[in-house]
């Protein structure tokens, strides 16, 4: 499937208002059209576009204005015909004199929807864009590359399956590239596309492209991401975005950006057993009682044994009800109504889970959070935590913060806006989570400030925190006070290594240890 780039062959559509009554007036013609199957008339018959055989791919674009991010997204929308002529006409009117030398309108105007942004010339928030090819549809989270990028990027990345990282071919990787890749990884994205943009301005320098791709692969590997595709791109000229750029870059025989996106996987990533956060109890009459929610992991079928958390009651699934039919199975993503075989107490915020694969329950968890508001996260302040349909009180104790420059964690007891930190969560009542690594739904939460009702953080559970002294769990714990060298030898043993995550180790002075032990005795 080789199609050469069709630079500048679009009309800007200013004639669209001339004949507003005719939908099919002045079809936009391109020399070589690929996205609409190459032949516009193919659709004028009774044959509509074939059903899409996959879920929409959600992606995030990371990069700054200087890297040409707006141009790249604009190019994707333009070349897939997601921009219609009247929109282009509005664009042309607003951007009078700002067209580039290829006769294309200023794409940033198309993207920066809000008036305030247009006036200030900056992007201030997350916007969502939609485009589709014959094979798939795409949802792009478009986030600003500069101010408050952590906050906005985290928001956009939370739902994304893939991240496009954009760099200027003349400049190569920047510190911000590392930041963006780090945040994307933290939010659970495991597929990267590196778009080496403005490759035309390097004279299509292959060595330059190879060097940048190599550097990026190293960076991605250091973050644990193996699925990386690097593409030399000219967003302005439309090369290797939707149309291939082999005319200018015969040395590149890899896929175009859109081809990579078409083949990318949507995150399944829910490696846990069955999870159903209960949103609502449906009782339309005396004889029917169903639990409504969206399956957040695993699958379920009639006959399965389930546990209701936090109560721990056990029941069996009798029916999976949906509007269309009584189903014989449901999988992650399905919005269902579950009927159980016995009267159990279930309410909104509970979770119905597989009996043989349960999430962790407890009152203390460890998590990583991104602080989203100017007030940051105050140590030990009590917030509302919402995860799935469950909302409960929690106090948050920051313990360390990520330095995005170096990628290293350092101690911290408060987190300001845009900071990424590790925190201890302490709940009043039982909480249940999976690790975010295992489940991007049951491991994710937001924090809400009870004073303002605003969303102040997004968080990802790393694991259950075993409490010192067995205060919150029934297991017996032993506190030891040891000389440091002996402790080191014990910690180095195989026995400990195998159960390292069950240990709490603090290095403190002998006097402090004595105080602590005394206080326990008292």
């Amino acid at each position: 499937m080789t199609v050469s780039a069709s630079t500048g062959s679009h009309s800007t559509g200013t004639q669209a208002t001339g004949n507003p009554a005719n939908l099919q007036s002045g079809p936009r013609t391109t020399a070589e059209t690929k996205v609409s199957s190459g032949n516009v008339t193919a659709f004028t018959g009774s044959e509509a576009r074939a059903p899409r055989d996959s879920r929409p791919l959600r992606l995030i674009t990371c990069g700054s204005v200087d890297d040409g991010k707006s141009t790249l997204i604009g190019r994707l929308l333009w070349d897939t015909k997601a921009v219609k002529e009247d929109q282009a006409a509005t664009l042309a009117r607003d951007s009078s004199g700002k067209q580039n030398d290829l006769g294309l309108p200023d794409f940033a105007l198309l993207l920066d929807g809000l008036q305030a942004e247009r006036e200030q010339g900056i992007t201030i928030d997350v916007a969502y864009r939609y485009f589709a090819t014959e094979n798939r549809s795409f949802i792009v989270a478009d986030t600003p590359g500069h101010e408050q990028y952590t906050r906005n990027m985290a928001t956009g990345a939370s739902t994304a399956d893939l991240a496009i990282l954009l760099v200027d071919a003349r400049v190569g990787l920047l510190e911000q590239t590392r930041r963006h890749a780090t945040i994307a990884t933290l939010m659970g994205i495991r597929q990267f596309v590196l778009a080496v943009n403005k490759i035309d301005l390097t004279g299509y320098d292959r060595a330059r492209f190879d060097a940048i791709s190599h550097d990026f692969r190293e960076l991605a590997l250091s973050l644990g991401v193996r699925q990386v595709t690097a593409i030399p791109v000219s967003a302005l000229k439309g090369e290797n975005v939707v149309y291939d750029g082999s005319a200018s870059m015969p040395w590149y025989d890899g896929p175009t950006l859109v081809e990579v996106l078409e083949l990318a996987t949507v995150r399944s990533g829910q490696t846990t057993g069955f999870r159903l956060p209960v949103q609502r109890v449906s009782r339309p009459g005396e004889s029917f009682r169903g639990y409504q929610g969206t399956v957040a992991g695993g699958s379920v079928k009639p006959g399965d044994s389930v546990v209701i958390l936090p109560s721990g009651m056990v029941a069996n699934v009798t029916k999976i009800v949906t509007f269309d039919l009584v189903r014989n199975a449901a999988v992650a993503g399905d919005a269902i109504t579950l009927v159980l075989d016995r009267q159990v107490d279930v309410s909104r915020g509970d979770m119905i889970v597989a009996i043989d694969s349960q999430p962790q329950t407890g009152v203390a968890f460890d998590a990583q959070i991104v602080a989203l508001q100017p007030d940051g996260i105050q140590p030990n302040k009590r917030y509302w935590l919402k995860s799935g349909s469950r909302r409960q009180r929690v106090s948050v104790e920051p313990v360390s913060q990520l330095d995005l420059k170096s990628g290293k964690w350092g101690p911290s007891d408060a987190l300001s806006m845009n900071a990424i930190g590790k925190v201890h969560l302490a709940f009043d009542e039982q909480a249940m989570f999976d690790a975010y690594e295992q489940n991007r739904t049951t491991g994710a939460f937001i924090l809400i400030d009870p004073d303002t009702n605003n969303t102040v953080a997004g968080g990802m559970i790393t694991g259950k925190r075993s409490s010192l002294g067995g205060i919150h769990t029934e297991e017996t714990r032993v506190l030891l006070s040891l000389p440091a060298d002996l402790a080191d030898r014990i910690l180095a043993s195989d026995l400990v290594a195998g159960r390292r995550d069950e240990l709490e180790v603090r290095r403190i002075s002998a006097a402090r240890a004595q105080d602590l032990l005394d206080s326990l005795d008292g």
Partner: protein
Amino acid sequence: MSLTLPETELHNPQSARPPLDPHLKALENEAIHIFREVAGEFEKPVMLYSVGKDSAVLLHLARKAFYPGRVPFPLLHVNTGWKFAEMIAFRDEIVKRYDLDLIEHINPRGAAENVTPFTHGSALYTDIMKTEALRQALDAGGFDAAFGGARRDEEASRAKERIYSFRTPDHRWDPRNQRPELWNVYNGMIRKGESVRAFPLSNWTEVDIWRYIQAEEIPIVPLYFAAERPVVERDGMMILAEDPRLELQPGEAKRQERIRFRTLGCFPLTGAIRSSATTLTDIIAELETATVSERQGRAIDRDQSGSMEKKKREGYF
């Protein structure tokens, strides 16, 4: 009347349809999730029902979300008195067929001050008969959440709106100060008087709407299908010339055209398109090759640059 369905009827006879493709299924699941979340979290939700194709999809999804129960909130139709007659007939039929609670509200100023799209201009008319009327109806009902059928692909300012869109007690939207929205965890915490507009169709595109209508056989107003209809050309738009209140101006003449509507609103402000699309398949095929957006036929979006954002800030849906 018992709302309980006999066991046998849990199997919906409509299930003879082939299953949805994964793309539409994902959009449907997301919308149902939002419906249930709002219904579970808010005291008094209401669903804005404009009788158009997006409302038709919204209603269908609401019925699915709460099946086998009834839709647990009323529908609100903000009427202006200038809707297409076929829309009103269709609305009344749907309300009856699906056993829905409908609240209809018309701003009393319309009649009292004789506010019409002809006398007041589209901007002022829309402000009074739609934006102000909506605020009146929401206040009167004391609703703390209102579902709307807006899609992010419709218009630039919508692209940045959250799925839970927070409103102040006077219904204002502050686009620069929206709550961050991560994953599918929605923050529904509000104070008394504040409210949330919830948009289950945020991630749908126009083509998705039509493909879903086709796949699910959802009834829609016949005006969406092409037919010979009387029209008159005004301000660069072809408007339907059926209502006796439409007075022809000098130089204007009624003529028959084979037309349909891509969106439906107030008939004097909604432009028709020439089309021969008489089936859903035709409409989808037409859309695939369309070169203009659906809102192109809406006079109110073109009043001024950034006009939708301005209206939204003031409380328009």
